């Protein structure tokens, strides 16, 4: 059917002349042709197609017939208003040049003469290698098409672990230093000399009392004789300080009886 239409309509215009005859070995309806032409990956691909189609060997590269066919395809592409990449025209020029050089009488000093087709043959060969490689890659089993991965759920008991930031002791000291330097700037914030040892013991006493669930503790319990006199003194000072700040209460029910301590 389409063959009949093709008989009547010019298939393409080559150099302004209508080509009614189909290019040799090209029995493709025009709309299909468009699709086919679009599927070529450039001039090398088209050339390879033409060579293979005619069962030529790349090494034989019969320039004359191949150039004719190539030009016919290119003209058809133009005819279909396909955006013709410049590469196709460059290739047309290359083919024309090779053809004309082949027509020149062969020089006798043929030693160093390079076959005008050599470069094109090399490019065709190289392109064919990677065209084939691409097809091979396409056939490799691949994810999403041939193989699928998946995963299993985390165990019921799984908890996400967050790696907490590391802090260096020097960073801490540095931070304190900074605070102190800055607070000096606030003159109205006069910082008093602090007896750190007492402060630490104050915290300890408070936490001991807290651990006792706010029950009262025996006064003696807050001292550790193993710490020696200095330790006892520090503890005593801490308790006095806490009393002064009304943080704890000391209770003595009878004179000279045992003293118990509890949180205020």
């Amino acid at each position: 059917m389409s063959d009949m239409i093709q008989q009547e309509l010019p298939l393409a215009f080559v150099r302004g002349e209508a080509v009614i005859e189909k290019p040799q070995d090209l029995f493709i309806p025009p709309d299909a042709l468009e699709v086919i032409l679009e599927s070529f990956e450039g001039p090398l691909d088209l050339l390879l197609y033409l060579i293979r189609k005619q069962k030529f060997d790349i090494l034989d590269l019969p320039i004359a017939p191949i150039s004719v066919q190539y030009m016919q395809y290119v003209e058809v592409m133009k005819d279909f208003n396909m955006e013709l990449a410049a590469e196709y025209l460059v290739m047309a020029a290359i083919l024309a040049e090779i053809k004309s050089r082949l027509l020149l009488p062969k020089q006798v000093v043929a030693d160093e003469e390079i076959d005008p087709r050599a470069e094109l043959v090399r490019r065709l060969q190289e392109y064919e290698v990677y065209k084939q490689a691409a097809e091979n890659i396409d056939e490799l089993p691949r994810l999403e098409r041939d193989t699928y991965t998946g995963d299993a759920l985390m165990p019921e008991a799984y908890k996400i672990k967050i790696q907490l930031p590391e802090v260096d002791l020097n960073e801490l000291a540095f931070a304190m230093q900074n605070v102190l330097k800055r607070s000096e700037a606030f003159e109205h914030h006069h910082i008093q000399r602090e007896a750190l040892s007492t402060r630490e013991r104050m915290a300890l006493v408070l936490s001991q009392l807290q651990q006792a669930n706010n029950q009262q503790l025996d006064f003696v319990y807050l001292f550790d004789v193993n710490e020696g006199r200095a330790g006892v003194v520090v503890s005593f000072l801490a308790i006095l300080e806490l009393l002064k700040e009304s943080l704890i209460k000391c209770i003595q029910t009878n004179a000279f009886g045992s003293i118990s301590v509890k949180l205020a």
Partner: protein
Amino acid sequence: MENIDDKQLVKLIEAAVFVADKPLSKNQIKSTVLSPYKVSPQQFNRAVKTLTDDYADRGVAFIEVASGYRFQAIDAFANELSLLFQEKAPRYSRALLETLALIAYKQPITRGEIEEIRGVAVSSHIMKTLQDREWVNVVGHKEVPGRPSLYATTKTFLDYFSLTSLAQLPELMSVPEMKLADDLTPIKESADSA
């Protein structure tokens, strides 16, 4: 619809449940991967039984949850597996470090006192972070209006910094009128004698 033998059926269900990103119900399995095959309910149940048994003593189990079948790593490795997806928390802010330093060096201390010294408000988030990390806890309440909490550092804090007592905190460079370092001596002694 073709027949599928038991062995192939087990493999197909296994593969399907594995690649699915959600549990697969019996119906979902039947209407998708098994749609080309004729599978009786008995055959299906046999396959599920086989799979469950095959994975009974492995690192993952083939289990049925409410919405279908799924693979799940066994509980025994919950701790190890949590090492796989550790998230790194961002570094601590200067505000947090200064707050911690003040609590360490001047405990027990109220939030108000910290704010007074730093000259800016201390966010609740910071106090929560420090307490979550168990570096700081509330050791009492100051008997002033509002009874603000008094904060102190913990044993965990000392352990983290490999300190045996607060006396081992680095000495601060002497700041005029503030010879904190001097005051550390009595504790040194008590620590040594302990």
